[in-house]
């Protein structure tokens, strides 16, 4: 007879029943092979035993046989739908695949049949946190606490659950109850200290400042809270919020502790009624007085001196800036310009800085006697001035200063690096790459120089040659340098290479890299999972809550935003012209170097694949066996990505987070429009345009979309049905006046923004949409060359691209005009010069510096 309540098909005779228990044990201790044998023994007699099938599937998954394992588990679940073991196993596997939603469903099923299973409850809580299902989380944590009130982390788990769910009061109650249960806490207990600090924060967030301070003070005094810096920081912050006089003293102590922490000065001054980030004429003198005092008190601190430069104006600024700049030039601080650049938003300050440093150049160029100035000061002064003039777009002047500096001291990598940057800014990526390589050759072990050199090669379109440079610092056994850098989640590399592929017209690889970036962010998101358990066990509650907040805003990172916008643009192009998916596969376009590299990469990839297979066999006994191994790259060129169905749906998905996390980014809204209008989501589309217009009404790309939107909607075969239709029409009417023709709307825009090359480009795109003649579009585009129009290199490149796209016969004419207009630029050189330019980029070489010398000595 089966035990009471157990379905007959689950019940096993005593022998098999004990075998099953052994099987569970073997799995727990990861004796997988023995487990498998045991499972087979049971299945020989009871091939339909669901729980055993599931366990067998689980073990197989651990041993790397994922598909077979999953099949078995599914079968097992079907055969025994009311077993908590079956559902638990299913949930474990789904969790391993990071399919958290499905996993939680399975866990919920499992809990139906075993309400008090601690393991399942704990896992479910982690899943609920990961999925931000906080109501459910509170419930689960409650259950756990009821079942095991002696376990400290169960209390904290419930507190955190309430906190995350926004119920701070309840969190406080539970926390206080928890603290009341504690007995004999050892001295200097870090975990207890962290918990108490969290308690202070909770009181602070509840606005109970008095209580927070007295709680903090008494626990600091009794040494229950042991983090001295945290005590001071909490204290200063909360006292400031209370407008207490004691706050100043605490901020002062913090500043003495670490005199280069800007936040402490901010706190000190805000306590005196000065908002350091928004100084007014009323608060200026007060702020300066304080900062001057700190500068005297703390002669070695940079922060008060630098902050004073933000605040001071006019003569006072000059008086403070001069010693600041001169001392840094004498010390030879390479980052001086980067430090000072933010002040340039104030033109007056910029001019004063220029005067000071120019005067120093005069002095140090012709010192009255040799001992009065250091030659290195002159060098750093030239370096600073080059950066200064380049930031004002005076690139030729910057280059001549750098040449003087290089004559003076040809061994300083910074000079070559900045020369590279100036050349890049002036539209010469090839000589820029070369200059960066020259810097690198001076110090081959400098990874920063190495990275920069690789990046500059990418900017010059030399993707494979960049990879050779990256290879100098990547793992030798990786499939390729790129694969290693992707493994290390180098967003810089992925972004630069994606952009380079895009510029080279290789849509497949570009898309592949942008998606790799997005994968990195998904990994970041998955990575928090382990902390749901770990942080509670370690009682590091404050940092944990910070992590959760950070994860919630993860995709506001500019690299994600960039990748989502650009990838969505590629997908939109694929939607508009599906032939791109096959056209861009062009292996024929590859240079020899690229072909060679491809072969090499393929071989290496195979090797890695084989090795990881071997590795999978040997690590099967480790704890974490449920995550799928590295997938084989069966799409090395991204062609499958290009050909995958529903490009717009994919684009919409990657843009989704930007609606909230990049709501102040106009490019994001324009990308959202481009995708929505093509998906026929008209309400979304017009709302995106409205959001964009609220940010910047005259934005050129927005203008193009306004016209696109209106003409698309008005040419629909049938008017849009309610409720969407009227909303769409009403919104468009607000954005584009009804009484005007679109042609007139466009020409008015052009008039209003004459002088702006971007606007000219936008108006041309719009008139093309409005079926204007090729000649008319060309004529408008060529006005970008008018002397009264401010045309920058980037816009010129885009204009040229558009001319080529509309197959204008005047594209060559425009190119030649740009070549003449931008003297330093090489990107407008005729196409037949490109191979020579690419060679220039690659031929930096210090072994031949002496080639022309005749005297040879060994």
């Amino acid at each position, binding site marked *: 007879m089966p035990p009471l309540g157990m379905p007959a098909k689950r019940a096993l005779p005593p022998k098999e029943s004990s075998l099953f228990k052994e099987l569970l044990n073997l799995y727990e201790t990861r004796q997988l092979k023995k487990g498998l044998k045991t499972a087979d023994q049971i299945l020989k007699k009871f091939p339909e035993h669901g729980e055993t099938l599931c366990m067998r599937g689980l073990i197989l998954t651990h041993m790397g046989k994922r598909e077979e394992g999953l099949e078995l588990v599914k079968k097992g679940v079907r055969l025994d739908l009311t077993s908590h073991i079956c559902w638990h196993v299913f949930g474990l596997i789904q969790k391993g695949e990071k399919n958290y939603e499905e996993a939680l469903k399975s866990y919920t099923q499992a809990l139906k049949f075993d309400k008090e299973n601690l393991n399942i409850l704990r896992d479910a809580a982690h899943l609920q946190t990961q999925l931000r299902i906080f109501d459910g989380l509170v419930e689960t944590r409650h259950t756990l606490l009821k079942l095991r009130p002696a376990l400290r982390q169960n209390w904290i788990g419930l507190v955190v659950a309430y906190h995350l769910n926004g119920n701070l009061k309840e969190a406080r109650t539970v926390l206080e109850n928890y603290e009341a249960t504690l007995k004999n806490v050892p001295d200097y207990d870090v975990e207890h200290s962290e918990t108490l600090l969290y308690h202070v924060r909770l009181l602070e967030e509840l606005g109970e400042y008095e209580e927070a301070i007295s709680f903090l003070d008494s626990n600091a005094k009794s040494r229950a809270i042991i983090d001295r810096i945290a005590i001071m920081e909490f204290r200063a912050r909360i006292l400031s919020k209370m407008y207490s006089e004691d706050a100043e003293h605490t901020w002062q102590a913090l500043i003495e502790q670490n005199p280069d922490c800007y936040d402490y000065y901010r706190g000190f001054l805000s306590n005196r009624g000065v908002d350091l980030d928004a100084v007014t004429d009323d608060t200026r003198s007060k702020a300066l007085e304080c900062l001057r005092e700190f500068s005297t008190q703390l002669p070695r601190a940079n922060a008060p001196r630098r902050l004073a430069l933000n605040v001071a104006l006019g003569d006072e600024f000059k008086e403070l800036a001069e010693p600041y700049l001169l001392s840094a030039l004498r010390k030879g601080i390479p980052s001086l310009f980067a430090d000072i650049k933010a002040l340039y938003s104030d033109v007056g300050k910029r001019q004063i800085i220029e005067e000071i440093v120019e005067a120093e150049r005069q002095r140090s160029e012709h010192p009255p006697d040799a001992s009065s100035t250091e030659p290195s000061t002159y060098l750093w002064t030239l370096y600073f001035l080059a950066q200064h003039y380049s930031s004002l777009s005076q690139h030729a002047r910057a280059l001549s200063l750098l040449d003087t500096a290089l004559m*003076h001291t040809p061994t300083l990598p910074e000079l070559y690096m900045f020369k590279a940057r100036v050349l890049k800014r002036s539209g010469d990526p090839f000589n820029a790459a070369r200059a960066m390589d020259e810097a690198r050759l001076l110090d081959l072990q400098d990874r920063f120089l190495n990275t920069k050199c690789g990046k500059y090669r990418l900017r010059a379109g030399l993707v494979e040659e960049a990879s050779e440079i990256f290879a100098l610092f990547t793992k030798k056994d990786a499939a390729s340098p790129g694969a290693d850098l992707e493994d290390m989640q180098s967003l810089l590399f992925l972004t630069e290479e994606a952009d380079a592929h895009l510029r080279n017209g290789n849509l497949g690889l570009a898309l592949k890299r942008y998606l790799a970036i997005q994968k990195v962010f998904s990994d970041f998101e998955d990575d928090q999972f382990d902390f749901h358990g770990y942080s509670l066990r370690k009682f590091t509650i404050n940092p944990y809550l910070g992590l959760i907040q950070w994860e919630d805003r993860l995709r506001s990172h500019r690299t994600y935003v960039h990748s989502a916008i650009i990838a969505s643009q590629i997908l939109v192009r694929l939607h508009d012209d599906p032939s791109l998916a096959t056209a861009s596969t062009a292996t024929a376009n590859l240079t020899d170097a690229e072909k060679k590299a491809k072969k090499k990469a393929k071989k290496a990839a195979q090797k890695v694949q084989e090795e990881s297979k071997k590795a999978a066999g040997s690590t099967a006994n480790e704890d974490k066996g449920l995550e799928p191994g590295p997938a084989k790259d069966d799409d090395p060129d991204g062609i499958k990505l290009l050909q995958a169905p529903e490009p717009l749906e994919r684009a919409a998905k990657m843009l989704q987070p930007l609606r909230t996390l990049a709501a102040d980014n106009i490019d994001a809204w324009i990308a959202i429009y481009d995708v929505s209008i093509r998906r026929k989501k008209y309400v979304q589309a017009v709302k995106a345009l409205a959001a964009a217009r609220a940010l910047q009404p005259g934005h050129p790309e927005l203008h193009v979309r306004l016209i696109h939107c209106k003409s698309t909607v008005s040419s629909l075969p049938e008017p849009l049905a309610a409720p969407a239709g009227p909303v769409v029409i009403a919104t468009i009417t607000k954005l584009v006046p009804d009484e005007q023709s679109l042609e007139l709307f466009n020409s008015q825009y052009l008039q209003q923004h004459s002088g702006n090359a971007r606007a000219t480009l936008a108006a041309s795109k719009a008139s093309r949409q409005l079926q204007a003649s090729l000649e008319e579009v060309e004529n408008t585009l060529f006005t970008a060359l008018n002397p009264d129009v401010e045309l920058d290199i980037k816009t010129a490149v885009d204009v040229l691209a558009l001319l080529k796209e509309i197959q204008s016969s005047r594209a060559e004419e425009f190119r030649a005009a740009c070549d003449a207009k931008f003297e330093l630029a090489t990107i407008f050189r005729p196409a037949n010069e490109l191979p020579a330019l690419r060679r220039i980029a690659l031929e930096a070489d210090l072994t031949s*510096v002496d080639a022309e010398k005749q005297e040879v000595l060994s």
Partner: protein
Amino acid sequence: MSSTSTPRVSFASLTPNNLGTVRKLNSVLFPIKYSEKFYADVLLPEAEDFCKLVYYNDVPVGTICCRWETVNGETRLYLMTMGVLAPYRSRGVGSKALQHVLGAAMSHAKPKISAIYLHVQISNEAAKKFYERHGFREVAVHKDYYKKIVPHDAWVLEKRLDGVEASA
């Protein structure tokens, strides 16, 4: 503050990684092209104490490179190159570099270094004076030492480290 502090002169050993800086310096300091053998020799482990990059306020401004020469059981150091970028001269950089190498040579025990010598083009009075200030003596004139640059002749300057007086 630091405007009154004395400039820092420091030294770094040569490695394959900073050899580019040495090449760069040699290219502007000397009218001579050095062979790949030169660059291989300066990286030899036994040369480490006698081949240095010289930094002035952390900027590489000079080099000093010697090699071993053992003849009939007597080991001497030959000073192949030593130079400082023009803007950084007359600041004691060269003297410090030379003293650094002389110190290393004198404290070298196995084998004992008996002397250090070098060639100076006979037009370069300033260089000769510099070495004489550091205890070098002219011991010979090497006729047609240079093949292409004029004048062709070079002085041979030597400093004994073993107390034995040089015989001119």
